[in-house]
């Protein structure tokens, strides 16, 4: 994946020249710019260190965070999220309109945008990209090469030929105007359009690289691809013809893999890298006072919970479930397992989400009350199996330890929880089949839409499936169904708020935490704002001296 033989040497020469030239100005800056933001550094190469490598650079066919972290830099979607929330705004589309009660959308595209290969971005490109994902027979679908567009399937109800597939057709209305015709209403349609999974790839590049597109990404984003050594580093460089004037500010971005947390920190401290992901919570304290280092918090976007099997006695009794809700000491859990970097959860969806009901009174940690409630409901010497996941997840860094903490909590109220663990696949199969009493699991958001949480975890349609609580409440189902198809944000908010109240009362699960990922970086890094979706474009980021 080498661009040209002479290139690196050239860049270096440039950098050196720039560095030399800037030395004086840097001195100057120090002289008079104390209160002002520091002057930009000569070498605008940012190294972002992370624990794992990207899976693929074809964003649509993979779902992992590490991949999108990189593709965010090279690709753009029609719409974009706010820098720190899932609020949508213009992206490659300058404007958009909804028609026919949400059955038709028209996007007006930005003019003068070019792909990194020089070809123009236009309505045809949009059509090609969407059809590529939707249509298994499309020439660029590459299904036989193992490409699968799972997120497309989930977000748009399947693929061409599937019953639930919502996008009926895509029409090119003009060079810069494109129309989506839907079969059904879809509340999260616009939200989906902001997802980095639905970014635009150059059709010319698809033509040229075919199934190798995942190693030869060509988008419209601020940075273009230079090279990738797997499990080591991905090098991107500034795209000179980027449509936003004077952006990006960085010349080069390198995503460096350093799996070991403490090695990554060492590298940050020694200045070998500029931003690191996956900071060990315990190092946070030490870093806080440290010269030259700042930390960044990412808004939370997940839930870790303890679910009950509502089909099994005695967990079909909401009173019991409520009692147990009082038994868990979430604060200690967060202190021990997340070193404080998590929020105690009271709802299923993360706080920044549309429709988050902040009025809900959480079940307080109150062992005595819990014990009392149990006694009142007639549960003496309750004993059950507490299933715990065998693998760590973002929302649960150490499930077995968490299980132990909760085991201790239950013991305090005279309830015996026996920790059960098994192989991951078996765990999933058996919880789906309802073999469990109480189990631990969680969920991560993708597009900031609440339906992704509610629909998958608590709707009775998701039995068997994601609804491992076997929670069935027609009222809730009704509310969720309405909210899913509604296209009015306010209405949706209402509906979800209401659903959450019922759910809180029914207590099909104990919501535990929303974890907050923390990043650390050199204080030379300016304008870096982590996005809740685990990745963000570094368009505005700049390195100061």
């Amino acid at each position, binding site marked *: 994946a*080498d661009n040209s033989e002479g290139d*690196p040497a050239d860049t*270096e020469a440039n950098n050196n020249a720039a560095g030399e030239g800037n030395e004086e100005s840097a001195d100057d800056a120090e002289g008079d710019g104390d209160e002002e933001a520091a002057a930009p550094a000569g070498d605008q*190469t940012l*190294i972002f*260190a992370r624990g*794992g*490598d990207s*899976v*693929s650079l074809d964003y649509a*066919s*993979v*779902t992992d965070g590490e991949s999108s972290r990189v593709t965010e830099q090279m690709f753009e979607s029609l719409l974009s999220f706010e820098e720190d929330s899932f609020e949508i705004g213009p992206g490659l589309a300058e404007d958009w309109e909804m028609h026919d009660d949400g059955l038709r959308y028209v996007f007006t595209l930005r003019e003068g945008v070019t792909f990194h290969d020089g070809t123009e971005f236009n309505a045809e490109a949009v059509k090609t990209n969407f059809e590529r994902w939707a249509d298994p027979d499309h020439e660029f679908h590459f299904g036989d*090469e*193992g*490409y*699968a567009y*799972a997120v497309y*399937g*989930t977000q748009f109800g399947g693929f061409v030929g599937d019953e639930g597939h919502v996008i009926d057709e895509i029409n090119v209305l003009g060079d810069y105007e494109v129309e989506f015709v839907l079969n059904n209403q879809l509340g999260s349609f616009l939200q989906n359009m902001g997802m980095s999974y639905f970014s635009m790839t150059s059709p010319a590049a698809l033509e040229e690289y075919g199934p190798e597109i*995942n*190693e030869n990404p060509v988008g419209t984003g601020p940075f273009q691809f230079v*090279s990738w*050594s*797997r*499990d*080591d*580093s991905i*090098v991107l460089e500034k795209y000179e013809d980027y449509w936003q004037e004077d952006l990006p500010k960085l010349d080069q971005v*390198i995503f*460096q*893999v*350093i*799996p*070991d947390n*403490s*090695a*990554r920190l*060492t*590298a940050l401290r*020694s200045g*070998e*890298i500029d931003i690191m992901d996956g900071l060990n919570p315990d190092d946070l304290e030490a870093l806080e006072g440290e010269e030259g280092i700042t930390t960044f918090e990412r808004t939370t976007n997940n839930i870790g919970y303890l679910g009950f099997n509502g089909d099994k006695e005695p967990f079909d009794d909401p009173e019991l479930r409520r009692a147990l809700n009082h038994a868990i000491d979430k604060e200690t859990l967060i202190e021990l397992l997340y070193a404080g970097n998590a929020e105690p959860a009271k709802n299923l969806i993360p706080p920044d989400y549309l429709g988050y009901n902040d009025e809900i009174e959480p079940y307080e940690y109150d062992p005595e009350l819990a014990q009392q409630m149990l006694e009142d409901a007639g549960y003496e010497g309750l004993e059950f199996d507490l299933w715990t996941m065998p693998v760590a997840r973002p929302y649960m860094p150490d499930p077995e330890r968490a299980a132990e903490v909760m085991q201790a909590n239950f013991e305090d109220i005279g309830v015996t929880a026996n920790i059960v663990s098994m*192989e*991951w*696949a*078996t765990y*999933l*199969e058996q919880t789906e089949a309802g073999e469990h009493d109480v189990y631990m*699991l969680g*969920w991560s958001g993708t597009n900031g839409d609440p339906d992704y949480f509610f629909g*998958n975890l608590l709707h009775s349609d998701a039995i068997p499936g*994601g609804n491992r609580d076997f929670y069935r409440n027609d009222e809730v189902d009704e509310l969720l169904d309405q909210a899913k198809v509604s296209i009015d944000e306010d209405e949706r908010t209402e509906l979800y708020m209401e659903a959450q109240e019922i759910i809180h009362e029914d207590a099909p699960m104990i919501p535990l935490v929303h974890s907050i990922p923390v990043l650390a970086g050199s204080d030379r890094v300016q304008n870096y704002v982590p996005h809740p979706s685990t990745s963000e474009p570094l368009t505005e980021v700049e390195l100061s001296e």
Partner: protein
Amino acid sequence: MFAYTIRRLLMLIPVLIGMSLITFSIIHLIPGNPALTILGQQATPAAVAQLEEQLGLNEPYFVQYTDYMLGLLQGDLGQSLRTNTAISGDIWPFLAATIELTIFAMVFAVIVGVNAGIISAWKQNSLFDYTAMIIALIGVSMPIFWLGLMQQWVFAQELGWLPAFGRANPRDPVETVTHFYLIDTLLSGRLDQFSIAFQHLILPGIALGTIPMAIIARMTRSSMLEVLRSDYIRTVQAKGIHQLSIVYRHGFKNAVIPVLTVVGLQTGTLLGGAILTETIFSWPGIGRYVFDAIGNRDYPVIQSGILIIATMFVFINLIVDLLYSFIDPRIKY
């Protein structure tokens, strides 16, 4: 000689087939539905079905194995489930990284181990002998992952003498041709990068090479002691040859075969130990490739990675066997 080589190669066939059978079976031995195991919790049933199809899990075992073998014979290691790329296309940089590290570690182990062993045997029961052998004993008992962590802590983090991770300075990526950084940096004429790449090798190389070094030192010593006691060394002594020349020319040459065997076997330790060292030192090698694949349940990668490492190991031992005949004229084939 030629016939022997052929014979040894023929003898490898059942071993290689057995190996492929074992690695092939990995995916079939996982309890539960492999496709679900791989895709995990948020997978749709359609995706599971598709993966089953892709992995060919619907076909009879024998057909699957035949396909797998036919693929292998054509150099097709299958496709990574995670990245959807052909494993055979991805694997070389990892392999090169590991080979570079392994060779460095082995060179370190052999140079230090052999010389320590020779001197210990020569100066048997001297202070040097005792110290060297105690160190070697500790060396063989050392958990290398711990040694690696401690080295990283002391030399990279506390003292800052050596880099803590990776193969090169991330700000100044090496232009890769062969993916052996020591060679690539030289090819592009960058001596500064060469020196940096070399520095990166030191900590993981020593961590990885410690156990083989200790084992080689012990083996060299005992083998040398036996040789030095032998009749023909006495014959050479009786010729009035200087002891140094006796020890190194006659002594070591005769002691080398068991040492060589150990070196061959220890490449196994190195290749296996690479998984540990590469994780600690963020070395993008095959060990980490496999280890990450385990974490991701990327079974085709696990299969291929293990098969390749084992095949390398088998061939190294074949080479060692063939080397014997160059060293020892008695081994005639």
